[in-house]
C-alpha cells in the first residue's frame, strides 16, 4: 500500500505547470474563446514536453505510460482550462487505438505521438449527439449500432473525409460537432464484443480523466475566489473575514480535498484493471462533478455581480466546469451506476 505519486510523476507535473503558466494564461484562453482551434502552438509544446505522446506505446514513438502518470497533468490542464483536446487525444483515443487488433491504429498512433493529430471520440453511437472536440479534430473514433442489437462497431474516421456540423457550447473551446459520415468496411476497426469492451473502457477512462480536469478547475475557482475575498472590501473589511463567505469557501475546499484521492485511486484501478475499476471511475466522476458544481456556485456567489461579467476571468473556468460536470455522465448518472454495481455485486 503506497497511495502517493512518484517523484518522477510530481516533477513532470511541475514541469507542465510551469509551461502552462506561461503558455495558457487567461489572455490565451480569451483568444481561444474567440477562435477555438484544435492544435495551436501549445499543442507542439505539449508534444515536445512528452505530454501528448504520454500514453502512446513506445513502439509508435510514445512514452507508453498510463492514467496514473497522466492524471496529475490533466489536473494541471484543468487548472488553466486548457483549450486543446488533451483529454480526448491522449487519455482516450491513444489507448483505444493501442488496444486494437492487428495494429489497425498504428499509423494514427505515430501521427498522434508526433503531435500531428487532434482526436475526438463519440461517447455514444447516437447519430445526432454532438461529439466533444469533433469540430476541428483530425481523427474521429465513431460508433454505430448497439451492444444490445449485437451490431456495435467502432470506426476510425479521417476528419478530412467527412463534414462535421458544429454545435456551439457555452464554452466555445469544447468544439462540439455532429459528424456527417458513412461507415465503411475500410473505417471499421472493431466490432461486436471487442467494440463494446473498447467503448466501456473508454467511458471509464473518460469519466476518470474528466474528473481529473474538474479537480484542477475546482482548485482554480477556489483559489481565485479566496484571493478575491481577501482583497474585496465591504463594511470596512475584506469580505473573506465574514463567516458566511468563509463557510461557503470552506465547504467547497473540503469537497475538493476528498475528491482528489478518489480520482487518483480510480486512475490506479483502471491502470491495474482491478475488479471494481468501473465503479471507482464512477465514484471519481460523481465526486469531482459535484465538487466542481459546488465550487462554481460558491465562486459566483462570493464574487457577486463582478463574477457575472465577461471581463472577470472566473467565467472562463465556470463554463468549462459546468460543461465537464455533465460530460461523460453527470454525478447522478454515475451514482446510479455505483449503486447498481454495489447491489449486483459486479
Amino acid at each position, binding site marked *: 500500500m503506497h497511495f502517493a505519486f512518484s517523484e518522477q510523476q510530481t516533477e513532470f507535473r511541475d514541469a507542465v505547470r510551469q509551461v502552462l503558466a506561461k503558455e495558457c494564461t487567461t489572455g490565451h484562453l480569451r483568444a481561444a474563446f474567440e477562435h477555438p482551434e484544435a492544435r495551436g502552438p501549445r499543442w507542439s509544446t505539449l508534444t515536445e514536453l512528452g505530454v501528448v505522446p504520454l500514453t502512446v506505446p513506445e513502439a509508435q514513438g510514445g512514452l507508453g505510460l498510463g492514467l496514473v502518470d497522466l492524471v496529475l497533468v490533466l489536473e494541471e490542464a484543468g487548472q488553466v482550462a486548457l483549450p486543446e483536446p488533451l483529454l480526448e487525444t491522449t487519455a482516450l483515443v491513444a489507448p483505444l487505438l493501442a488496444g486494437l487488433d492487428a495494429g489497425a491504429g498504428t499509423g494514427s498512433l505515430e501521427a498522434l505521438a508526433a503531435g500531428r493529430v487532434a482526436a475526438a471520440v463519440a461517447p455514444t453511437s447516437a447519430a445526432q449527439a454532438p461529439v466533444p472536440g469533433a469540430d476541428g479534430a483530425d481523427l474521429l473514433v465513431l460508433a454505430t449500432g448497439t451492444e444490445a442489437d449485437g451490431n456495435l462497431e467502432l470506426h476510425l474516421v479521417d476528419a478530412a473525409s467527412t463534414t462535421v456540423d458544429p*454545435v456551439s*457550447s*457555452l464554452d466555445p473551446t469544447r468544439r462540439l460537432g455532429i459528424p456527417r459520415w458513412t461507415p465503411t468496411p475500410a473505417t471499421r476497426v472493431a466490432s461486436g464484443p471487442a467494440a463494446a469492451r473498447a467503448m466501456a473502457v473508454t467511458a471509464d477512462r473518460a469519466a476518470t480523466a474528466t474528473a481529473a480536469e474538474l479537480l484542477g478547475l475546482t482548485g482554480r475557482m477556489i483559489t481565485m475566489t479566496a484571493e478575491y475575498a481577501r482583497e474585496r472590501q465591504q463594511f470596512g473589511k475584506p469580505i473573506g473575514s465574514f463567516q458566511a463567505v468563509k463557510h461557503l469557501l470552506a465547504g467547497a475546499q473540503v469537497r475538493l480535498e476528498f475528491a482528489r484521492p478518489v480520482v487518483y485511486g480510480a486512475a490506479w484501478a483502471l491502470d491495474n484493471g482491478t475488479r471494481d475499476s468501473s465503479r471507482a471511475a464512477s465514484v471519481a466522476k460523481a465526486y469531482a462533478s459535484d465538487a466542481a458544481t459546488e465550487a462554481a456556485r460558491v465562486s459566483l456567489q462570493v464574487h457577486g*455581480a463582478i463574477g*457575472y461579467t*465577461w*471581463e472577470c476571468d472566473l467565467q472562463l473556468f465556470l463554463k468549462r466546469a459546468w460543461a465537464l460536470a455533465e*460530460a461523460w455522465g453527470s454525478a447522478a*448518472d454515475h451514482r446510479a451506476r455505483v449503486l447498481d454495481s454495489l447491489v449486483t455485486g459486479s
Partner: protein
Amino acid sequence: MDTPMDLRFTAAHEAFRAEARSWLADHVPPPRSLPSLDTAEGFEAHRAWEQTMFEDRWSVVSWPEAFGGRGVGILEWLIFEEEYWRAEAPLRVSQNGVFLLAPTMFEFGTPSQQERYLPAMASARQIWCQGWSEPDAGSDLAGIRSRAVRAPGDDGWLLTGQKTWASRGAFAEWCFGLFRTDPEAERHRGLTYFLVDMSTPGVTVRPIPQIDGETGFAELFFEEVFVPDDQVLGGVGQGWSVAMATAGSERGLSLRSPARYSEAAGRLVALYGDKLAEDPVRASRTADAVAQAWMDAEAYRLNTLWTATRVLGGGSVGPEASANKIHWSETDLAIHRAALALLGPEAEWHGDGVDAPWLDGYLFALAGPIYAGTNEIQRNVVAERMLGLPRA
C-alpha cells in the same frame, strides 16, 4: 364584518382575467420573437410593445387611471401577471421604472413629480434605470461615495461619481440614483434620492458585457451633472429611507410576481413528462427535484396571496421581504437546476439555432442570489429583524 377564508377569485376577478387573456392573445408577439432587449434594436422593439400595452391600458393596470392605469388592486395585478406569463409575452423593458421606482414615487413623490414622470413611464416614452450600486458599494450600499454638491446658481445639485450594475443602463432615458449630499453625515445619513435625465451633459455610459456575452447592465459615470431641485425624490437627506421603500418592492411583492415561476415550473413539469418517455431512467432520477421545484413555485404563489390579503387589510411588508427574496431566488435556481438535470449532456448545447431557454434561464437564475441585495445580507436581516439575533 368577519370575512371567511376563500381562495377562489370572484366573478369580477375572473372577468378581468378573461379580458386580459383575450387582449394578450390578440396582441402578444410570438414567443422570443423580439430581439434581445439588451440590443439597441431590441430595446426599441420592447418599447414599442410597452406602448401597445399602454394604448389599451395594460402596461400599469394597478395605477390610477389618471396615470394610464386601470386603478385595479393588487389581486388584479397578480391575475394580469399570471396571464402575461402564460402568454409568454416579452420581458418588461420598463420594469425598473414600473415595478421599482413607481411604488416609491406614489409614496414619496410630489403631485407634480407624479404627473411629470408616471405617464411617461407608463407609456415607455421614458425608460428608467437604477443608479445605486458603486464599484465599492455593493452589499454595503451605505458605503456610497458618489456625491452631490449645491450648484452655483443654488437652484439644484451637481452630481459626481460612478454607478454600476445598472440594468437597461445602456439605453435608458432616465436614472433614479442615490448620492451623498452631506459628506459629514454617517453612512446611511446624508444620502439623497435623485431623478436624473441621462441626456444631461456630464453623464457617460459604459455597457458591461455579461458572462453570456450580452450587455445586460452598464456603468454610469457622472461628472458635475446638473440636477434641478425638483428632481429630488422624498427630500434632501432622506435618500436611505426612500431607497429602502424601493428595495422593499424589489425583494417583496412587486418585482417578481409568482406567475413568472409558476409558468417556468409548468414548463419544467412538461419537460419531465417528455423525458419520462425518452429517458425514463434519467427522468425518474430527477423526479424528486422536479417535484420540489414545482412545490417551491406553488409555495411562492400561495405566500404571495397570503401577503397580498394582509396588505389589502392594511398590513405592511417588513423583513418578510427578505425571506421572500431568498425564496424566489432559490426557487428560480431549483427550477432551472432540475431542468438541466433532465437535459443531461444536452444542457451545454447553446445558441446557433439550438434554442437553449433553460441554460439561459439558469445563467440568469444564478444572479438571483446576488442582485437586489445578496441572500447573505437577506439572511442577516431575517435573523436580526425576525428572530431578534444581535448584530455582529
